[in-house]
């Protein structure tokens, strides 16, 4: 491990809940990016926990933008650096939560990708608006109970499937798109490195469980993140030059675990009946067949 890797650019003392996957994700991402990085963040858990004025957990220059324009502000930073002739050796990273990427910041993100700025956009996905009290988002998976998609006699919880954000971003024809997971740190670091080395826009979708919103123990965070990959719920892949037909699955479980192993660990899915789980299993099986993942055990 190099000296650069030992630097903690995301300082202790941030207010993330105990066992928050976001802390692990940002720490590891900044270890790869190093101190020559300028970051922007939009509103979301990450901003709330790390920049409570007058304190900040960041050791790198950071601009806090509004909810919808992390990508737009990063685009401004990148253009200004180029204009001043100081872009060489400087990484520009735009961070966003799932709300600020999938829903509210989507037009700014799409615009940034289309204009071809040399920016790495990193979406840290915990599958709902967690810091305002667990409201559903277009990243919330089918069947999850949230405060605005509550379960009950006539409701299964969230009734719509998760938006395939990485595929949508890849469809812009950008040079590098990848999905990553905090349980697979080496894979995550490799992808961050590739994304930063890419000339032009890169998009990274990082899966990070939330103990508060998903209703699991704070010590289960990494295990649940790993189960998402082992069951095929979240597939780790990368797409080069937006060639969606030619995606490369980077982590292939030898044998896929049943999706129930992942669902039953979280209380947001606690209300699902056997039939509901069978339906989710069928959808996951179909998806995994498309990605060429192995059959279920």
């Amino acid at each position, binding site marked *: 491990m190099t000296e650069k890797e030992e630097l903690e650019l995301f300082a202790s*003392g941030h207010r993330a*809940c*105990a066992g928050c996957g976001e802390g692990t994700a940002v720490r590891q991402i900044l270890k790869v990016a190093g101190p020559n990085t300028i970051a922007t963040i939009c509103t979301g858990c990450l901003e709330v926990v790390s920049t*409570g004025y*007058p304190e900040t957990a960041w050791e790198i220059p950071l601009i806090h933008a509004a909810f919808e324009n992390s990508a737009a502000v990063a685009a401004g930073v990148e253009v200004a650096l180029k204009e001043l002739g100081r872009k060489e050796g400087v990484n520009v990273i735009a961070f966003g939560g799932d709300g600020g990427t999938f829903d509210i910041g989507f037009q700014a993100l799409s615009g940034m990708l289309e204009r071809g700025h040399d920016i790495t956009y990193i979406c840290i996905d915990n599958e709902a608006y967690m810091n305002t009290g667990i409201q559903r988002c277009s990243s919330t998976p089918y069947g999850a109970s949230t405060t605005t998609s509550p379960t009950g006699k006539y409701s299964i919880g969230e009734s719509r499937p998760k938006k395939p954000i990485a595929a949508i971003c890849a469809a812009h024809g950008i040079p590098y798109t990848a999905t990553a997971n905090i349980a697979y*740190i080496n894979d995550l670091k490799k992808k961050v490195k590739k994304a930063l080395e890419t000339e032009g826009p890169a998009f990274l979708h990082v899966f990070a469980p939330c*103990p508060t919103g998903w209703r699991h123990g704070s010590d289960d*965070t990494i295990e649940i993140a790993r189960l998402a990959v082992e069951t095929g719920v979240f597939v780790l892949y990368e797409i080069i030059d937006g060639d969606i037909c030619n995606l490369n699955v980077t982590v292939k479980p030898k044998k896929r675990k049943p999706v129930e192993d992942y669902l039953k660990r979280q209380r947001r899915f606690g209300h699902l009946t056997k039939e509901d789980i069978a339906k989710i299993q069928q959808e996951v099986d179909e998806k995994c067949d498309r990605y060429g993942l192995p059959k279920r055990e």
Partner: protein
Amino acid sequence: MTVKITLGAINKEHGSSRKYKTGGWRTVCPVVDLEKCISCYRCYDYCPDAAIKKIENGIEYDLDYCKGCGICSKECPVKAIVMVKEEK
């Protein structure tokens, strides 16, 4: 506490969140058995709060910041870390 607000709320003090000790949130405390530890540093990598330091032949906790989430204990491949109830 009075907080001085700078122009544009610019904060020049990087990493100042370290002033706030999150260790007070803890209800269970990690204890490492260095004889069992194989220095794989998996706990170090997964810790969300950067509360684990690498030392020769193992790790050391910074209990000022450890929130007691228990990820390190659960992910330890040789079960060298146990969580014990915090004493007042």
